[in-house]
């Protein structure tokens, strides 16, 4: 067992450093270029309040993208992250507003609900052998429906839970450095990213995540229970989505049951722009974070420039295609 891992690992690592680093550099350079171009084009772009607005806009998509990265590295896909986020928010609403439980229990609910949903997706995929695209598509619809059923299609407000809106809107950093009121939501995104990054590079789970994506068959033949590890990855991703659910609910001070469709595609776009391969086995959290920032900077910048909304959409599409094209070219070269 350990032999195979050692055998696949060096090749893996080498590829990660050379091509992964290159793509990350490319993505990071694009981010800087975008920031510079927008700053030159509009004097209103580069102000603290707008930078914070961009970070704030990144927080939810960023967390979802981190979750999606884990799943995509295994060679899978998770189309349910958007509606799962909503579902965890609704469940939090049920616990905090309907049942009147204390705040920490709401936080636990969100993460546990997400982890459970992820575990279900993982079971469909690993045990029932349903392709990830279909399994998570089904999950996406199930969770969307359940959110509407449980909430009665009405938003659930968190007015009775003091402090709930501070999870996302408050600013611990701002209390220490008043000039830098970075919202907690952004802080949480970075903590989640660092934790996920640690798991990927320093734990057994992380190593199997990459191994599953590069050659699942080989891993299984060497006697590893791949099903179990796959389910673990989906459950972990689900737990992270739960944190995303908390962030959006806190930011809106409500669980909006109809929201969520389309968010999975934005998360996947961030992952891909960040250089993670959709065919699995390769990817980084830092790349994803940069990808999510690029999306947010692009959207915000085009708005600040008052580009017509139709064209904003076109430009975003062009950027995604450019990013993936760059990835393709580089892989052909490797």
């Amino acid at each position: 067992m350990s032999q195979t891992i050692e055998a696949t690992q060096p090749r893996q690592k080498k590829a990660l450093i050379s091509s992964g680093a290159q793509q990350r550099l490319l993505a990071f350079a694009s981010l800087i270029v975008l920031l510079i171009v927008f700053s030159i084009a509009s004097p209103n772009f580069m102000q603290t309040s707008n930078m914070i607005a961009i970070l704030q806009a990144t927080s939810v998509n960023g967390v979802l993208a981190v979750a999606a990265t884990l799943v995509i590295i295994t060679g899978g896909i998770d189309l349910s992250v958007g509606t799962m986020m909503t579902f965890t928010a609704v469940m939090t609403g049920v616990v905090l507003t309907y049942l009147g439980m204390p705040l920490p229990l709401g936080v636990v609910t969100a993460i546990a609900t997400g982890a459970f949903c992820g575990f279900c997706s993982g079971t469909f995929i690993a045990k029932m052998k349903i392709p990830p695209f279909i399994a998570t598509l089904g999950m996406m619809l199930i969770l969307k429906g359940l959110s509407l059923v449980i909430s009665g299609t009405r938003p659930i407000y968190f007015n009775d839970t003091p402090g709930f809106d501070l999870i996302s809107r408050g600013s611990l950093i701002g209390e220490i450095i008043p000039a830098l009121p970075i919202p907690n939501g952004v802080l949480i995104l970075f903590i989640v990213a660092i934790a996920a990054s640690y798991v990927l590079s320093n734990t057994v789970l992380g190593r199997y995540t990459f191994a599953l994506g590069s050659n699942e068959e080989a891993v299984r033949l060497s006697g590893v229970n791949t099903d179990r590890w796959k389910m673990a990855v989906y459950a972990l991703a689900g737990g992270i989505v739960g944190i995303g659910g908390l962030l959006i609910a806190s930011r809106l001070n409500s669980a909006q049951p109809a929201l969520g469709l389309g968010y999975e595609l934005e998360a996947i776009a961030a992952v891909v722009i960040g250089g993670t391969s959709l065919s699995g086995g390769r990817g980084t959290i830092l790349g994803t974070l940069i990808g999510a920032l690029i999306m947010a900077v692009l959207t915000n910048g085009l708005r600040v420039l008052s580009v017509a909304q139709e064209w904003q959409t076109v430009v975003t599409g062009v950027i995604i295609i450019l990013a993936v094209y760059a990835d393709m070219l580089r892989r052909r070269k490797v």
Partner: protein
Amino acid sequence: MLSRRTLIGAISALGLLAASPAAQAEEMFIPLISKGFQHQFWQAVKAGADQAAEEFGVKVTFEGPDNETMVDKQIDMLAAALANKPSAIGFAALDSQAAIPLLKQAQEAGIPVVAFDSGVDSDIPVTTATTDNLAAAGLAADKMAEMIGGSGKVAVVAHDQTSRTGIDRRDGFLNQMKEKYPNIEVVSVQYGDGDQLKSTEVAKAIITANPDLKGIFGTNEGSAIGVVNAVRETGTEGLVVIGYDSGTAQKEAIMDGTMAGAITQNPVGIGYETVKAAVAATKGEDLPKVIDTGFYWYDKSNMDDPKIAAVLYD
């Protein structure tokens, strides 16, 4: 090599974009953040806003999320609009509560907020440009009374009992009937959530329960289409159906005679009045709490009238 090529491409693309629209002149800048963008109704609101922008010589942008569930996207749009230091802002909230922190920020920065369409549930906006739904539904009642000859039984299929528009349209119709037409009895008011299928079932039940029913009023597009479906499915004849708003299905029902006519709001007027009020607000002029943007009755006879055709959407 590759990265250089990609970067050059990205830079030139952005350079082009940056060059065209970023005319940061001293002209007044008023962004409108709406509840939607792609829907024909919102495009009509945008057309009205553009018209006013030209007339008053101000710069107007119009943005809205892809659908009415994307509350957080709308908040991001509002944040970006505020970053641009606008002279005033037009805003139609998807969820008023979620927008409060940013609206307060606007208030502190001295940026007047003009609410439009369903408005903002807060006292921050200086005014709200919207349809007077009470009066519009009252007009529907007048038309209904006229067509059924001033007496008989009628019913209402409403879209919901909690939203402002749902309550106002229902009450506007009921009050008018009670005050002006004592011989007309409203036998039933039921709710179909604006969902076509649900409204169909609701209307069918009403028709079955009241064989001598003379008319039904559907309070929004989905409700009205539901009533039309019910009339078709049950094969009922001689029932006066009155709808609200437009859309292809409703327009067709009016053309083929299933529906007698409908009330249309004036989305162009909503956009126009919002910008006009925003300009007035920046000059410190006093504004009424609510600006009525108008509504029209339309039927087979006047659907092609340019004034009506301009406010109808498919």
